[in-house]
């Protein structure tokens, strides 16, 4: 199994891709997912995270098969 990582809006442009697929190895939390997918780069300020389409904190636990998303503050409506 693996972790699907998704990026949206300005963050997608910044990282230069819309998604990654990571093997579920050495991953415990959401921030581990970011670091592993982005060569230990610092997560930009104000970025929000979701696991399986629910908002989570960066230290929330991730399990095998989860979809983890990172995106800037929302601006709909």
């Amino acid at each position: 199994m693996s972790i699907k990582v998704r990026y949206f809006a300005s963050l997608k442009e910044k990282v230069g891709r819309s998604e990654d697929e990571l093997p579920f190895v050495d991953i415990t939390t959401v921030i581990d997912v970011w670091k592993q997918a982005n060569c230990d780069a610092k997560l930009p300020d104000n970025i929000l995270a979701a696991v399986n389409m629910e908002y989570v904190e960066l230290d929330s636990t991730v399990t095998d098969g989860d979809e983890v998303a990172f995106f800037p503050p929302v601006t709909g409506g």
Partner: protein
Amino acid sequence: MKIKIVTESFDPWQEIQQFQQSAENMRGKFGATSIFIGTMRDFNEGDDVKGMTLEHYPGMTEKQLDKIISESMQKWSVIDVLVVHRVGDVFPDDPIVLVAVWSSHRGDAFDSSRYIMEVLKSKAPFWKKEILSTDIKRWVDKNTDGYL
């Protein structure tokens, strides 16, 4: 409740009429309908804006809107709710969002529609990228607090 994410321009008044006509559960029961329509302006932060692209997170958008509407239906006595939101390329005067709430009395309709709209602005995963009259493109940083 009904949630629609639409990729083409929509007529909010037609959406309201169609929903109300087909909603058997509301017949004879509602005394109040509160409607909010958000429309695209041709200006923002001192600049002329000629268009924008609305991106969203399919699946999470519907999930979050469902949650927001359900919360409002627990807080207030609401009969039914319709939310329509545009994605894709939008131009000035195009409707972006419709929130319509039907209830027996006006207080519940007013309060729940305001709640849905304000929480949608901070939780529903949509993002706007503006195209200025100078052809510069920029992401909208954040939504303002509607209560300020």
